[in-house]
Structures are given as structure tokens and as C-alpha cells.
């Protein structure tokens, strides 16, 4: 994820250009269409991922991989093919500037506690600040809907979705229960 100073700079430029003499399409025009599924200010759940406050890099990376087919999808592969890399960047800007969305989910307390320790030990180098920040393309995990995270882990485990090497090294040493606890921990971060 970009540092704050740089993010604010990018936002400023966009906020100015969006109104006056913008070349179509504007980030808003492109992104409003996503919000029916992903929520105007974060997803209302229970499984559609929240994109509010997701990092720009994570969104651009996901959209490129959906478009190429590298990342397995339900509808997103078909949708991503309609947009350019430049448009992905505009969408990423839009979502990264949205306020962090706190979800309310019924989660197993024991898993949250167990997951906190496992996440700190195994995941925190890339999913920083309890998953509120992500290194490079690593997504923000904090407060994400658990069913979505579980579907993604299922896709990783069945090798339909490719893990970054460093993640694969960690994940292969963890049991399904341990992985579930880690996801539950991240889903619970407020």
C-alpha cells in the first residue's frame, strides 16, 4: 500500500479533474456500477467482499488477474474484461479513498483469540496493522466478510487460485482449522 502522503496527493489530483474538464470516464462513473454488489460504503455482507478502503494496488492486481483469467472468479472475470488497466487504476483510487468499513459478524471467540497469535506469527509481514494495511498488492483483510475469505482460502487450497510464494510457504504448514482461525481473526478487526 502507498504511504499516506502519496495517497493524498493522488486523491487531490483526481478530485480536481473529476469535475471540471475530465476526459470521460470519471472514476465515479466507472465505479458507481460496482456499488450495487459491493456496497456504497462497504458491503452489507454476508459474503460479497467489501472494497471500501481496500488498497489501490490490491484492487488493480485483482482486476488484472481476473481479466487475464489467472485468478478464478464467478462474475468478476467476465466483468474485468470490459475495462482497461487505466480504468482499474481509477477504480482503485476511488475505493482506496473510501472510509474503512467495520462489519458486524457472528464469529467464534476462541477462533479470534487463536487466530490473533497465528496471524501475528505468520501473516503480519504482508498483512500489516492487524490486516488494516497491506504490503504491495497484499489486500486489506481487516473486517472483511468471513465467507468471502473462506471461499478464497478454499480456492488457494485447491490450487485454483495461486498464492504468492511467501504465503504458500506459511499456509502449507497450517491446518484447515488454524487457517480458519486466522481468517476469523481478520474478519473481527474493527
Amino acid at each position, binding site marked *: 500500500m502507498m504511504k499516506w502522503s502519496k495517497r493524498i496527493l493522488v486523491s487531490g489530483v483526481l478530485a480536481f479533474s473529476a*469535475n*471540471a*474538464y*475530465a*476526459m*470521460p*470516464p*470519471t472514476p*465515479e*462513473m*466507472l465505479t*458507481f*456500477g*460496482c*456499488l*450495487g*454488489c*459491493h*456496497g*456504497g460504503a462497504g*458491503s*452489507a*455482507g*454476508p*459474503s*460479497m467482499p467489501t472494497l471500501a478502503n481496500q488498497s489501490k494496488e490490491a484492487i488493480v492486481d485483482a482486476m488484472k488477474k481476473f481479466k487475464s483469467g489467472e485468478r478464478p*472468479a*464467478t*462474475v468478476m472475470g*467476465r*466483468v*474485468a*474484461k*470490459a*475495462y482497461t488497466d487505466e480504468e482499474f487504476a481509477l477504480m482503485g483510487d476511488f475505493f482506496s479513498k473510501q472510509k474503512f468499513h467495520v462489519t458486524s459478524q457472528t464469529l467464534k471467540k476462541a477462533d479470534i483469540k487463536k487466530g490473533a497469535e497465528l496471524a501475528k506469527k505468520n501473516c503480519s509481514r504482508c498483512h500489516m496493522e492487524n490486516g488494516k494495511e497491506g504490503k504491495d498488492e497484499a489486500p486489506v483483510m481487516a473486517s472483511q*466478510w468471513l*465467507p468471502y475469505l473462506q*471461499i478464497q482460502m478454499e480456492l488457494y487450497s485447491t490450487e485454483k487460485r495461486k498464492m504468492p510464494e511467501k504465503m504458500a510457504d506459511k499456509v502449507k504448514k497450517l491446518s484447515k482449522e488454524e487457517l480458519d482461525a486466522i481468517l476469523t481473526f481478520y474478519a473481527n478487526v474493527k
Partner: protein
Amino acid sequence: MTLDRRNFIKLLGGASTVAMAGVASVASAAVAAGSASEVMPKGKQRRVVVIGGGYGGTIAAKYVRMLDSTIEVVMIERNKQYVSCPFSNYYIGGLMKDLSPLTISYDKLAKNHGIKMVYADVTAIDPAAKTVTMGDGKTISYDRLIVSPGVDFRTEEIEGYNDQTSLLMPHAWKAGEQTILLRKQLEAMADGGNVIISMPLVPYRCPPGPYERASLIANYLKTNKPKSKVMLLDANADVVAKKPLFTKAWNTYYKDNMVYIPGKKVTKVDAATKTVTVEGIEDFKGDVVNFIPPQRAGRIAVAAGLVGPDKNWCPVDTVSFESKIHKDIHVIGDSAAAGAMPKSGYSANTEAKVCATNLVALMNGKETVDLSTLNVCYSAISDHESISVAFVYKVIDGKIAAVPNSGGISPVDFSTTQHEHIYAESWLKNILTEMST
């Protein structure tokens, strides 16, 4: 910005709109002073009136306020609660115990965004005076009007159809009491009874809807009334939405409980004997008959002369969804003829956002933005599997068209159907949340 022809027209449009808006507010002030029947007389503040609080109207009202809070927004809606047509087949097929997951009210939306709600039926629009008339004869004036009334039924084309028909042969194509009625009839039917669904020629609201309904009724019969069958009489020559997916689902899961017959356009009904007649000659009699009549734009859109030469749908500008017939009136959702976009809830949602964006730009004399819309539509094929269609649209050669080399339907190997079923449920929750908050 390069001042090509299109941009030049846009700029001109913006400028003339500002001038017109100025004239209009003087005119409506005169109306306000002289008309005893006017409610909420318009002050200096510019006003957008939205007719219809469904998938299109709620979003249009909300986004106009979000994009320019100096514009007053009045939404006129007949009912205090709205029941979603998308996912109402879950209830009909017994996958949803009541209509509460489909039902929204307008209180939070109105409060969060400062939208003024008026619960009334709109009976007339006067495009010259820029007023709408409600059932009680009272009028409300506007600077710009957004019309999002859904569909009306062309029942006059069906011999024998009268006021009582839908009470005996529910259409269940507007959700609420009709949805409950169809479910009750299915529950009351004896094992061995037959269900007929009759669906109209395209275009109609929700292209995959009848096919999803047939699938979910077959799913219900398979477990609960195994000797029963559902027969889908399609007026079209072939399945018009998600064909390979529905066909596979029917062949794989519902061979014993479902029959699909294309090319059967019903022209006559007899509700008393639960009989439908195809092209005046071939009779089909059922124990439960779900007759979905042919459709056109919502009644108010037709009454206001917003429909085009086909007398059914409203031609609109591809930038602002402004009517090509009446100035300052925008039409969105099922009623609009929006090129390749299907008449769906998600289409209405994204059309509303484009309309709001460019309506606000026009009211402020700013440049309009090229359209980018989506349709994402799920259909359940059983209690744990769903299929989808997704397309992104833009304007190509002056028409709203799907972006080439993108979009499409779920893989035919059904490798994603279980995940799609999970996401479908979340689609409903999110889109209804966006409409109601």
C-alpha cells in the same frame, strides 16, 4: 479537452439547460402563486421529482442528493414499503419463508439524504407546466423529472383477461400479494397436479425470471409433489436468457417435473377453468396457472406520452436518460428503451447513477460524462446452485451496447454454481441496502 463535435453539443446542451432552468423557475413560481391545488410550492431551490421508489427511483433520488445537496429531491411512491421482484422466485419456490428479505421501506433513505417522500399515485405529467398530478388532484412542480415506474401489462391484447384474472391466475410479476398468492396456490395443489407458466415475447421485465421460476417450482415439486409437473409455455421461439445453463439444469435435475415448450404465445385466457389458449387454437389447462402478460412501460410513462413509435417503451438519450420526446423528463429502469441493456434491477440501479450524474451536470451547466453501466443478474437453479449473466455497457455508435470481448454467462460445467449461490444472496442484501440507506 478537444472541442470535437460531440463535446461541443454537450457544452451547448449544458448552457441552454441553464437558461431554460432560469425561465422554468419563474414559470413555476407563477403556477405556485396561482394554483390552489399545488402542494409543496417550489421556492428558489431547484427541484428534481422522482416518480417510483423501486430499483431505479431510489438510487436516482439518492445520487442526485449525494452529487449536489443544493438540489431538492422529492420522491413520489405509491406504497410505504417496496417488495423486490428479484429473488421473489425464492419465495415462490419455498426457499424463503416470508417476504421480509425482499422488503424495504424509505425512512432511512429519506433521512440520510434529505429526500422528501410523498406517498401518492401519480396520474398525470404536464411537461409544459412542469408539474405532476397525483391521485387526489394535487400537483407538484419540478425543474427536472425522473420517471422510474417499472412495467405495466398489455392485458387488452389477451382475450378474456379482466380485473379478476390475476386473482385466479396470478402473474406474480410485481412482487408482494401476487407472489404470496402464487405460493399459496402451489402449496394447496395436490400431488399430481400440473402447473402452467405462460411467458410473453421479449422485451419484458427480467429476461431470465420465468426460467428461474420454472426451475425453482420444479425443484419444489421434485421434493414435495413428485407426481406433479410444471409446464413452461414460452411465447419466444427459444430460451432467451442463459440458455445453455437453464437447459442443462432442466435436463440434469428436473426431467421428471418440468416440460419446456417454446413458440407458445398465449392469446386467450379463461381464469375460471384455468385454461390458456395459444394463438386462438390450442388449449392448455392447469391446476395452477401463472400467466405473465406481455408488457410495456409503466402506466404513467404511457399516459404522459413518453413512449416511442412502438407505443411500449420510452426512447431516451444515451448520456442523461432524458426522454427524446419531452424535455427535462428522464426515464430509467424497465420503462426505458436502453439499447442492449436488459430490463433488470441491476440495469435500473446503474442507469439511475448515470442519469443522476448527468442530470446534475446539466443542471449545473457542467460537462456530461460518457455512460458506463453494468448488469449483473443471478438466477437460482436449485436450493444451493445459482447461475449468472454479467455485462458492462457503454455507448458504441450512438447506442448502448455491451463492451466487446467481455461479459457473458457462468461456465456451463457448473463449476461456479455453488459459490454463485452464496454471492447471489449477498447481491440481494447489498443492492437493497444501497436502495434503502
